[in-house]
């Protein structure tokens, strides 16, 4: 009986097996990379808002504290998006004729809410509580980035679970003193250690973790219920 397969079939078989293996791996890795990409996580994405509110101007330029608008951040899971009234507290006095602010005035006049585009969206099965993070010394900027430099707010992190766990596994990497939580410009180096040397995040974090008695909570029901 003549040979059914030519000699190169051996090589071809190995090439195919290796090829399938490689393709599967490359495919897998590509999928992982894709899942973390800004395209899939919607990070870095800026949206057109009804009013082009600039955090950079209000926070960095005017020095308004985060809590002036996001007033329930210390008490509740929800940081609150300010009501139209909060805008009008100032804008009934200044920039009263601004065309840009017409939607705000219209909202106040008609009683119809402004409809902001949501930027940060966690999945429905995730329960995040702002108040406890703020209480534990996690700065606004640690998660939200330098909002004070953003003309239009975008999502800085991926909001993937690994992004949360990055901190939950070792909170000392991000902790800051409680009175610095709302300081967008905080740097650990600004503080001094007991021996007089400037702090690093490592030294400060370790110290604060001990002082605040902070656990590393990575169990499921911490966030999923």
């Amino acid at each position, binding site marked *: 009986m003549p040979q059914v397969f030519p000699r190169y079939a051996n090589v071809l078989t190995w090439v195919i097996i290796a090829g399938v293996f490689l393709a599967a791996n490359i495919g897998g890795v590509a999928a992982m990379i894709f899942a973390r990409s800004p395209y899939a996580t*919607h990070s870095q*994405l800026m*949206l057109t808002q009804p009013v082009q509110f600039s955090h950079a101007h209000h926070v960095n330029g005017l020095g308004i504290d985060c809590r002036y608008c996001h007033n*329930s951040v210390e*008490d*509740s*899971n*929800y940081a*609150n*998006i*300010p*009501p*139209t*009234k909060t805008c009008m507290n100032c804008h009934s006095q200044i920039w009263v004729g601004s065309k840009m602010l017409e939607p705000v005035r219209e*909202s*106040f006049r008609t*009683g*119809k*809410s*402004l*409809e*902001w*585009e*949501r*930027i*940060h*969206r966690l*999945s*429905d*099965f995730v*329960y995040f*509580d702002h*108040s*406890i993070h703020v*209480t*534990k010394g996690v700065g606004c900027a640690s998660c939200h980035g330098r909002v004070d430099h953003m003309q239009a707010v975008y*999502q800085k992190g991926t909001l993937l679970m690994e992004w949360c766990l990055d901190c939950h596994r070792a909170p000392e990497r991000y902790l800051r003193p*409680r009175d610095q939580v709302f300081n967008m410009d905080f740097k650990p180096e600004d503080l001094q250690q007991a021996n007089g040397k400037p702090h690093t995040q490592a030294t400060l974090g370790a110290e604060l973790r*001990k*002082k*605040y*008695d902070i*656990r590393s*909570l990575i*169990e*499921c*029901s*911490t966030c*999923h*219920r």
Partner: protein
Amino acid sequence: MSSMTQNEKPTLDLEAVMKRLESSDGKQYWRSLEELAAGEGFQEMLQREFPRQAGEWTDPVTRRKFLTLMGASLALAGLSGCRPPGGKIVPNISDPEGVVPGKPLFYATAMPHAGYGMGLLAESNQGRPTKVEGNPEQSASQGATDVFAQASVLGLYDPDREAGLTYLGQPRVWDDAVAALRAELTKSGKGKGVYLLTETITSPTLLNQLENEFLNDYPEVQWVQHEPAASDTPIAGAKAAFGVACQPVYAMAQADVIFSLDADFLSRGPGHLRYTRDFSSRRNLEKLDKMNRLYAAESVFSNTGIKADNRLGFRAVEIDRVAQFLAFQLKVEGISEPKGLSAQARHWLTIAAEDLASREKGKTLVIAGDEASTLCHALAALINDKLGNAGKTVHYIDPVHARPGDRAKSLRALVDDMTMGKVQTLVIVGANPVYTAGADIDFKAALDKVPTRFRLGLYHDETSRLCHWHIPDSHYLESWGDVRAFDGTATIIQPLIAPLFGGGNLHDLFADLSSKPSRTAVDLVKDYWKAWFSAPARAGLNSSTTFEKFYRKSLHDGVVAGTNFPYKQVKPLASATADAERVLASLPEWTVGSVSNLEITFRPDEAVFDGRFANNGWLLEMPKSSTKITWDNAAIMSLKTALELGVALMTESRPELEGGKYHSGAASFGITGGEHGRAFVDTLRFTYQGRTLVLPVWVVPGHPDYTINVQLGYGRERAGKVGTKDVGADVYKIRVASDPWSGLGVKVERTGKQHILASTQAHHYMEGRNLVRSGTAEQTMKDDHWVHKVNGGGHGEEHDHGHGKTPLSILDGKDFTYKGHKWGMVINLTACTGCSACVVACQAENNIPVVGKLEVTRGREMHWIRIDRYFEGNPLKPEELKAHYQPLPCMQCENAPCEQVCPVAATAHSYDGLNDMVYNRCVGTRYCSNNCPYKVRRFNFLQYTDYASVSLKMVSNPEVTVRTRGVMEKCTYCVQRIRQAEVEAEKRGKLKAEREGRALNRESDCKIQDGEVLSACQAVCPAGAILFGDLNDPKSKISQARAKLENLNYSLLDELNTSPRTTYLAEVRNPNPKLVSSGKGAG
């Protein structure tokens, strides 16, 4: 596998079963007759974690629909790939004062039910009421709620309420309706020819409006109250005994011995939550010598009967004689000895009477049930007086509801007037008389003779369909008002949300019809209480505080202080016994029960009450306590009655046999009957007073012989989408209004047809193994180790696994000590009355979906906590038969078998030792459920959660994930409440440490206080049967209970070494030793 074929039908060998029961030492607990028969088919069923078909989708129509939906969702998925982050944020214009976004608010209010109020704290999440808890300050609730209150939140959002205000089906506005009604009222004189039909009214404001404004302006209006599931006999009975109309309220906690004359005081009536609480306060396991004793003589197998220490079944017709015999034995002067009682009944009653007589005066209590006759109530009052109970354990107050009288009679008078054409205009408020009037009152035909009909109702139901005007009523969570509780305490009803479907309530209607139409309900309520407050009688009160302060406090507390009715001093009439004797003499001759002389009793249903909750999925799917039937009503009878009637009981459960093979003739048990919860039962045609009704049969062992119980509220024609089609049978069709609760002379014939009942009694079976442990107080006081020395069920040997020892672990070095909190639960079987409030509360708290009858028959109900009901004893000897309830949530095992088999770690232990369930990780292998010995895991076989109905989205608890298809779920110990409490404790601790200027110490600063976290089931329980708390805190109630009652505390299936966090306190009863049957253990 079973050798049984379809044609070969093993039948229950009754004799063999009885023999086995007799010969077994120790106790045998069983859940269904099939289990008792324990044939091969049953064993086969046991092998399946989920019953046949549970994993398949066999219905071709829904399959096609599913494929269509799949197509749609794929299309959506494609589109959503490039969506922006998603959603809009729509903030307020101006934030309301006192609201912290993201935090729920609680408002004190009350739910009116059959006229009477139950105090509630309603939770509002961002303006949406999502859950109610009991109001601890209010007398009827004392922090507990019942199933109706829990399910009322779903009723609020019921999409079927969306009928709008209509005239002849055309949309109109409120003012049109008011103008039309005003025109009718002023047409001829002052309301002549206008009749008002309402439900029971206790609301002080409404009564004031009605009597002082409306009936003042239109004095010729006739007002009638209709309440199909309420009874007027308690007041009439008290009047017969004392000469004044008054109603009894009980001080249950003061009574050492309670005798119930067909009274189901633990589950029905406006005061039942309070009575349950007080009753169980005297069943404290730490004070066994102070334990009360309950005798129940009853015509059904009620929850009260199940909890009774000594119980004897009677036909309802015999209850008067029982009362008479008791009165005779207790030497109530002038009461003669009744004839006809069986020797057994005489023996039992004599001993009970001796017990009552031997106690201290004023320490006993005889309660007649709502359904009992006027005579029975009068006799109970006389006995209580004789025993010195009046003013001690029973108090009499003025009737709480307006114009007490014979409501059935006044309805009949109304219908007569309607038939005679005297009624020009009928305004029906609430009540659904077309459905509930009763078979001997042809309300429908009479209604036809009324020229103009108005209806103010929650639903466009049977009555609204026949009315010209339908005005949507507002739900109690949508409107202002007030209501009185069983003892007269008033609560102001506060709305939590504006009416979702438009409309208004009766306050608004009366106000708009009055000469001062600009007032709204909120003004009316305030004005009424202002007048009340300023009255001279309240001089002490109004001199010490201002009305505003008083009103705000009343709103805040949910109770208007000082409104409970004062106790009356009453003396029996000299002629009372003679009157009673006269009525007794006029009673028909005593007849012995038999299948040719059957009795029928009517009771409001545990789930849908009189039919008003017939469109509530939570209630319809709640397994009823003694039958475990869902989505249906049935004719309940004893095994003996069923055998003598020759009905085939639960014959076939195989779908391929549906409508095919049917075994008629002598009683036979299908061994697989009840598998899937799909019980194929015979239907019977009942003929009662010339009217017929077909009902499926359900056998409840322990039910009295020759009396058949049927439940009101089903078979609605226009209940809504959920409750209309094929949901039970309408027993109002054979109920006569003149004798609404029972009657003799029912003729029964077999129809030869069968009906599928969805009963969950055979679901989640744990193979017997002495899961329930029950003993007597006497035995326990001697030696409480009996709990751990029980016969090991299937093992057949005495053993004491792990009791008090560190549990073994296959994982070396695994310890179960936890830093910080260690949550645990103790369920007290002595206290549990099986009321199912925990089941519905859990459903409301945890967004548990409703699956429907078909899915229940496949064993797919989703309740996280179930209440297993076990029988004990010989089903043919109802007098000896006992039943036990055992609530079963997730046991939160330390060595959790589910965790060990999950391939994706979707269920895992948390830092405080909870057995977490992570929905987003679950891939739906169901291994965990397969490996769970307690059968507490539930799987979303289909997309059960309703994403489509807009209004139903609002009922969800925002703190709990809404689960989707293909995900496993189970009890989490209400982890959302624990985590929230933790966050609050951490914040509190931070403040404390900061204030004291020191580093934080979690152990001491951030401790959650005992009682700060209540699981939903614990919070709702009127009996206090569920204790939840921190096992690491030696001072917590749960630790104390476990320590003090160590020997009564046991865990389920201890021998499996799962080391459950949830443990049970054994059931202890206090039967009269003289009545304990010999031989088989005690209790």
